[in-house]
């Protein structure tokens, strides 16, 4: 599976690793400091949910760091970001929540989301370029001569009547009769 990695691939990988460690750190805070986080946000009712989100973050982080290709895990992070934003967004309407702090948290999540999306796009684009390098099938035409010379080589074939398109839908050529345009054959 040896293949060279380009410079931008390296920086995308580095960003992914950074996001992986960030996931684990944030997850640890949510999991072990669930109560304080909940209190800070005025979301005491949701302590267990926050801990659960912490587990999700840790799993994703480990996935990013441990896998050969972090791309799907980064997409997973983006899904998680959306979930976080939705959960926080709902709190903005709750009277017991500290709306300013929820707002700050949402801002932070949105900031990381931007990084996640940048990272995912860079990784996806790069992995596509790598694919193109590794598996180049441009010599597999299946044709005996260059494709351009094979155009129409099967024109001895007669389209069966039931598969012909209606004459009215054929390309318009010269009118045969005066006055009225005719479909060509």
């Amino acid at each position, binding site marked *: 599976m040896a293949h060279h990695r380009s410079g931008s691939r390296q920086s995308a990988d580095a960003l992914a690793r950074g996001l992986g460690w960030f996931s684990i750190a944030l997850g640890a805070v949510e999991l072990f400091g669930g109560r304080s986080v909940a209190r800070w946000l005025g979301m005491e009712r949701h302590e267990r949910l926050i801990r659960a989100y912490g587990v999700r973050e840790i799993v994703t982080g480990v996935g990013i760091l441990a896998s050969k290709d972090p791309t799907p895990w980064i997409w997973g992070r983006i899904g998680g970001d959306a979930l976080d934003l939705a959960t926080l967004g709902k709190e903005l309407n709750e009277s017991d929540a500290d709306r300013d702090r929820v707002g700050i948290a949402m801002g932070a999540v949105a900031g990381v989301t931007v990084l996640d999306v940048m990272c995912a796009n860079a990784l*996806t684009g790069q992995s*596509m*370029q790598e*694919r*193109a390098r*590794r*598996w*180049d*099938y*441009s*010599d*597999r*035409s*299946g*044709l*005996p001569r260059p*494709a*351009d010379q*094979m*155009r*129409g*080589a*099967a*024109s001895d*074939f007669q*389209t*069966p009547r*039931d*598969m*012909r*398109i*209606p004459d*009215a*839908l*054929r*390309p318009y050529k010269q009118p045969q009769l005066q006055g009225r345009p005719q479909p060509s054959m």
Partner: protein
Amino acid sequence: MKALRWYGKGDIRCESVPDPEIEDSRDAIIKVTSCAICGSDLHLYDHFMPGMKKGDIMGHESMGEVVEVGSAAKSSLKVGDRVVIPFTIICGECDQCKRGNFSVCERTNRNGELAATAFGHPTAGLFGYTHLTGGYPGGQAEYLRVPYADKTHIKVPNGIPDEQLLFLSDIFPTGWQAAVQCDIEPTDTVAIWGAGPVGQMAIRSALLLGAKQVIAIDRLPERLSMAEAGGAITINFQEESVIERLNELTGGKGPEKCIDAVGLEAHVSMTHPDTILDRAKQAVMLETDRPHVLREMMYVCRPAGVLSVAGVYGGLLDKIPFGAVMNKGLTIRTGQTHVNRWTDDLLRRIEEGQIDPSFVITHTVGLDDGPEMYRTFRDKKDGCIKVVLKP
């Protein structure tokens, strides 16, 4: 014998099963020398097609040697014959078979009533493809029982390798029919969605049938490189707008002919939000298919143009812009392939060297490695385009 059996979503196993036996006088038994995994098999693997049962034997692209012939099939087959088996089982005698509409043969689907409940009328029996189409054991196995074998076969000569002939069973005639249904004119642009095995065959067919311009749409660079080799201009749907590019390439008028070689599992991505909605609806059974490609074709096709749908769809589809179809006067042609209608002609083209369909094979393995190859093919890993299994 060994066979690949379906056990549920993402679960195919290579197991020992009893050898098939002649059950009807029109049957024959084939010793399979080569078989292939098809994009249609992925719809079963991902469990988007209803009507599979645990333990069903997969596979509908097989060829091999005749080892046993029922009394009523002896007039046209004998032990030792080399045959490719079409994926559609045909009686050769019903009204539809007589017209060459083999994939809607009226007799060979032994679960015709089930099919009629789903589709209004029965369609032909198919190998290894759900109980809606007869629940016939498939050919990803060491041996295959061929019902109606006196008609359901394509005799092939010795001296040409399996790899060049195997795809007469399905994908070559399927790509060919997709192009034939377009009734291609020398002035036509033919746009083909999907550069999988079916798309690749459609690209070559459209070229051989004389299309002025063939355009292939996919997102996987290795598949696009193979499409280019076949003379296609390519569009990467994750990097560019398909609609804009198609209009650009046709002076703003859109392609005259559009081929769907993708089917019900269109790629789900952020760049195509409708696919995310479709995926969500699939999950809660509000919709069976993801018809992104149909939507795009209907929208971009030139007025009075043709949509040729080779990609398989299973059930109920949402948000279909039929207004575009009606108002632009589009023609839609569809169908499982009438394989035997084309194979004499296509075999001749292979023999004459006009085309060698083996170009599409990227992986050849034994039956034991079949389950892993299903995963590789589904995930488009390891540059995989077409897998051939050697039982």
